[in-house]
């Protein structure tokens, strides 16, 4: 089991009203799965992704990552997991300002030991080409459209070829054509064995996955296999 969540809760307690975003989520994802998470705005999808991706701390519950208890990870373990095992595509992109697309994509590799710098740069360019961003390699984030920023963020998540890809609405800002291409990339990666968990609002995007989990008010209300899976390379019908 790659991801095993047992009764996870998450409370936000910063200034202002305390909010409970997750109320007991129990979930298991095996290696090689492709899971779509759906649910209304505010239902806790992003929160769940952050907890899975070790970007935010859970409040209570148990989390086993790759059969290891997450409570036992220290700062160095977590950094290594975030760096090499998980690629995260943020809903808000979070690209580094005043930094070229290429350098943004290469950002995780700064923290990866024993990397061949030249080969990595070449790989970054290949990934950007696959995401149709070859002509934007030297642009800075504020010079890109929303969709281009989203694809740059996806490229960054892929650079270290992580086992687990967590994508928070990776097609949220894309036209249907670019969206289809992103889904093609994700499906290919999944075919290659990468585990993917993706948040989406669109039914037809979700049906590119193999399993759909629906959240409501911080709880899972349904968890189903996709009966008729779309293949992005055949085109997505809305």
């Amino acid at each position, binding site marked *: 089991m790659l991801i095993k969540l047992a009764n996870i809760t998450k409370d936000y307690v910063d200034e202002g009203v305390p909010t409970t975003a997750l109320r007991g989520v129990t979930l298991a994802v095996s290696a090689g799965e492709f899971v779509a998470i759906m649910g209304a705005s505010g239902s806790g999808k992003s929160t769940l992704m952050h907890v899975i991706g070790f970007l935010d701390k859970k409040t209570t519950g148990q989390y086993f990552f790759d059969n290891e208890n997450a409570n036992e990870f220290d700062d160095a373990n977590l950094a290594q997991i975030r760096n090499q095992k998980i690629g995260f595509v943020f809903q808000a992109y979070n690209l580094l300002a005043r930094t070229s697309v290429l350098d943004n994509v290469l950002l995780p590799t700064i*923290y990866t030991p024993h990397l061949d710098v030249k080969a990595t740069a070449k790989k970054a360019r290949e990934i950007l080409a696959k995401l149709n961003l070859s002509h934007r390699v030297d642009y800075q984030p504020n010079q890109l459209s929303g969709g281009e920023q989203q694809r740059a963020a996806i490229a960054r998540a892929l650079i270290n070829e992580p086992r687990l890809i967590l994508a928070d609405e990776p097609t949220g800002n894309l036209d249907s054509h670019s969206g289809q291409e992103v889904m093609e990339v994700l499906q290919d990666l999944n075919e290659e064995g990468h585990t993917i968990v993706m948040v989406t609002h669109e039914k037809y995007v979700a049906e590119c996955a193999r399993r759909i989990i629906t959240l409501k008010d911080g709880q899972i209300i349904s968890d189903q296999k996709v009966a008729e899976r779309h293949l992005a390379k055949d085109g997505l019908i809305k």
Partner: protein
Amino acid sequence: MRFFQILKYTKNNLALNKTRSFLTMLGIIIGVAAVIAIVSVGASAQDLLLAQVKAMGTNLIGILPGASDDQGLPSAVFGIEVTTLKYEDALEIRNLPDILAICAYVTGRGTVGYFNQTKELNYTGVMPEYPTVEDAAVATGRFIKQEDMDNMARVAVLGSKAASDLFGQDFPLEKQIKINQIVFKVVGVMAERGASGLQNQDEQVFIPLRTAQKIMLGIDHVAYIRAKVDKEANIEPAIGRVKEVLRFRHHIKDATKDDFSVRSTAQALDILGSITQALKMFLAAVAAISLIVGGIGIMNIMFVTVSERTREIGLRKAVGAKRRDILWQFLMESALMTSLGGVIGIILGVSISSAIALGVNSFGYEWKLIITPLSIFWAVFMAASVGLIFGLWPANRASLMSPMDALRKQ
């Protein structure tokens, strides 16, 4: 992450945020440059003043009118005119054992003219032994003689600069000049001495003391007296004898009621040393303030950018930076900025000090450029500490947050 990679990313990162990096460095540059320049000026000024007292000559005893306690300043320093010292006092002191030469002084300011050339100059009434007392030399002609004193002769000896200012290419000896409309005959020109104290000796006009007292100023007292003692060991006993003579002449029975004060050059040096030391401390305080100002500048920039930097740290952690990586990055950034700023600050500070030295020297003073290594050390140390502390502190805080908490920072 390898060291060179960190260095490269640090350099890029600083270049990406030019304004921020520049403003941070500016704080350091200002602080360091100000401290170096201010401390240098203090040290040079002290050196200049002390050197000038030493240049007055060693083995000198100074007699000032008015009482003063041993460490304090004579009242004459504050411009209070005390009339207790007389020409006759000087003559009596001259007769004491071990005294080589004596000179009493009065000073005035006046318009000195030669043909249609006029200049505002200081004139000094002195006694014939002035050149011995002050280690001065006559370049051409002669100095004032005892006969000139006795006759209240209207003769003048010009400082080298006063001579060249008034006469230009003309030969000054035996020419007539007017001091405040009174005609004097030039009998000598002094050799060049260079600026000393607050007055340039070379711009002085020397006339017989008695002439100055009676004809120019209409007074009976003298401003001060200087006596040269034959050797250093005899200074202390000589001071004692001078005091005795003056008390006898002034009918003083109680030493605490002295209407004069007697000091050796060594004592004067001590007093001046403590005054200039106080001046240096004051300047050091000013320097400390500029360091604080520079430090606040650095702090400001760090605080203004803290939320942007917090988000950056959140992102870096999200893609795999360890706490250590973050701290290294910020340490390198701060170190690079503080060392660069420090170096520029040192260069600027030394340049300012040199410019001041050049400027003062152009007025004829022997202002030595003194740069204390300790001031450089402290300036850079303090600026670097502020830079490092305020660079690392927010970074450390952000590095302890979860990546999302840091990324959400507004």
